[in-house]
C-alpha cells in the first residue's frame, strides 16, 4: 500500500488537468450519480486545482438540447432526460402512491409561502395539518424544517428542499409557476390586501422567500 503523503495542504504536485479533461471528469462524476451534486461535492472528487464551476458550465452547454440535459436544482446539478422525451420512457416509471389532496395543498403552501409555520399552513387550509402529511413530505425529501420563527413560542418553519426542486424541474424556488402573479395579487400574504398588520403579537410577519439556505 503506498504511503500517503503527510502534507495534503501543500501546493499541488502536478499541474491541474486541462479544462477539456476537467469537463470529461465532471461529466463522468455527474453521470454516475442519481443524486444532484453541488459544485463543492464535484470539486472534492476532481484533482486539485480544477475549476469545477467552469467545467460544469461547459458540460451544461454541451448537453443543451440533447436527449439528456444537465439540470440545476438549487445549488446542485444532475443529468436528467429531457422532459419532452418523457413519453418514450414510460416503462421506466416506478409507481409511487399518488399524493393526497391534503399533501399536494400542503406542499404547494410550503413552496409558495416558505418559510411557513404549521399554524400558517393551517390558517390557509382552514383545517389542521396532520402529522402524517408533513412526515410524508419530509420523507420524500421535498420538505424540511427551516429556521425557527422569532415569534413567541419560536415555532418551526417548513421550507422546500433541493430534492423538491429536482423533482419538479425547478432551478430555484423563485421559478415556481405563477409566483409573481400570486404575489402581486397579495395571495401570498398573511393578511388581505389593504388590511394592516393585524396581530400586534406577531411583529415579525413572515416574509415570503427569505432564502431558505441563508
Amino acid at each position, binding site marked *: 500500500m503506498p504511503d500517503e503523503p503527510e502534507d495534503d495542504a501543500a501546493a499541488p504536485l502536478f499541474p491541474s488537468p486541462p479544462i477539456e479533461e476537467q469537463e470529461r471528469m465532471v461529466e463522468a462524476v455527474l453521470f454516475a450519480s442519481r443524486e444532484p451534486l453541488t459544485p463543492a461535492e464535484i470539486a472534492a472528487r476532481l484533482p486539485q486545482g480544477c475549476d469545477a464551476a467552469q467545467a460544469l458550465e461547459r458540460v451544461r452547454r454541451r448537453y443543451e438540447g440533447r436527449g439528456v440535459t444537465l439540470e440545476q436544482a438549487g445549488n446542485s446539478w444532475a443529468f436528467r432526460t429531457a422532459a419532452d422525451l418523457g413519453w418514450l420512457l414510460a416503462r421506466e416509471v416506478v409507481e409511487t402512491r399518488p399524493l393526497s389532496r391534503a399533501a*399536494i395543498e400542503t406542499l404547494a403552501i410550503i413552496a409558495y409561502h416558505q418559510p411557513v409555520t404549521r399554524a400558517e399552513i393551517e390558517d390557509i387550509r382552514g383545517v389542521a395539518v396532520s402529522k402524517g402529511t408533513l412526515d410524508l413530505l419530509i420523507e420524500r425529501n421535498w420538505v424540511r424544517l427551516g429556521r425557527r420563527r422569532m415569534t413567541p413560542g419560536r415555532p418551526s418553519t417548513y421550507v422546500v428542499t433541493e430534492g423538491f426542486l429536482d423533482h419538479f424541474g425547478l432551478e430555484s424556488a423563485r421559478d415556481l409557476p405563477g409566483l409573481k402573479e400570486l404575489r402581486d395579487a397579495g*395571495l401570498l400574504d398573511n393578511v388581505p390586501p389593504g388590511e394592516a398588520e393585524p396581530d400586534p403579537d406577531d411583529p415579525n410577519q413572515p416574509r415570503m422567500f427569505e432564502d431558505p439556505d441563508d
Partner: protein
Amino acid sequence: MPERAAWDQLFRDVPDGRTGALTGDDKTAAEALVVDVEGFEGPLDILLTLARSQKVDLRHVSILQLAEQYLAFVEEAKRLRIELAADYLVMAAWLAYLKSRLLLPPEPTEEGPSAEELAARLAWRLERLEAMREAGARLMGRDQLERDRFARGAPDTQTLRRTVIYDASLIDLLRAYSRIKTRDDYRPLHMNRAPVMTPEEAIERLRGLIGDVLDWRTLSSFLPASWREDPKRRRSATAATFVAMLELVRRGEAELRQQEVFGEITLRRRAADAR
C-alpha cells in the same frame, strides 16, 4: 370526484339556503354527503365548493349567500343526524354572526372590523385557498422526476476504497516498552507477595498438617503465622483454608463440624476405619 358531484347537486337545488322536504332521491344524495363530509378538508373547503356553485369569480361571491348556503348545509346535516366536527360548527356560528351583521345596519359604537371587512376577509381566504389548490395542481402538472424526466437508470456504484492506517505515538511506544520492562522486573516479586492465598496452596498446606490432627481443631488455628496479622491476608487465607477443608471432606480425608450458627468451624482427620 363523484361524491362531490352528488353534493353539489344537493346544494344547487337549494341555492337560497332553504331546503324543502327531501324526496327519496334527495335523501340518497344527502346520505352521500355523509361520505363526502369525510372527503372535505374542513369548513373552508366546503365554503370554497359552495362559493364555486355561485358560478362567479371568487372576488364577486356573495358572502351573505355563502353564509346561508353553509348554514343550510349544517341544518341539513343536523336533520340527517350527521355528526359534524367541531370546527364545522364553529364556522357555522361565526357565519350566523356575520350574516346577522351583514343584514343589520352597523352600530356606530361597535369596535373592530366592520361586517364588510369580515366578509372581504373571508372572500380573500377562499381566494387564497383556491390559489394554493391551483398552485398544487400546476406543480403536479410539471415534468416530474421519474415520471417525465429520468435520472440515470443504472448509476455507477461508487466503490469505497477503505484504507486503514494504524497509528501510534512515541508515548504509546515508550509506555509499551515500560509495560514490558515492568513485567520483567517485578513479576516474581509480585507473584510471591500478592496477599492472596490460593485454594491450591491451602489444600497442599492442610494435607500436610492433617495427618497430626486427630482431635477437632478450629479453622483459624490452621492459618500460617505470616497470614494472621494483616486483615487482607488473613481474609484470603481464611477463605482459601475453608475451601481446602471442604475439599478434604469431599475427598473423604477429613470431617467438619460447626456446633452453632456462625460458630467456630472445626476439623479433624477422618479415622481410617471410618472410610
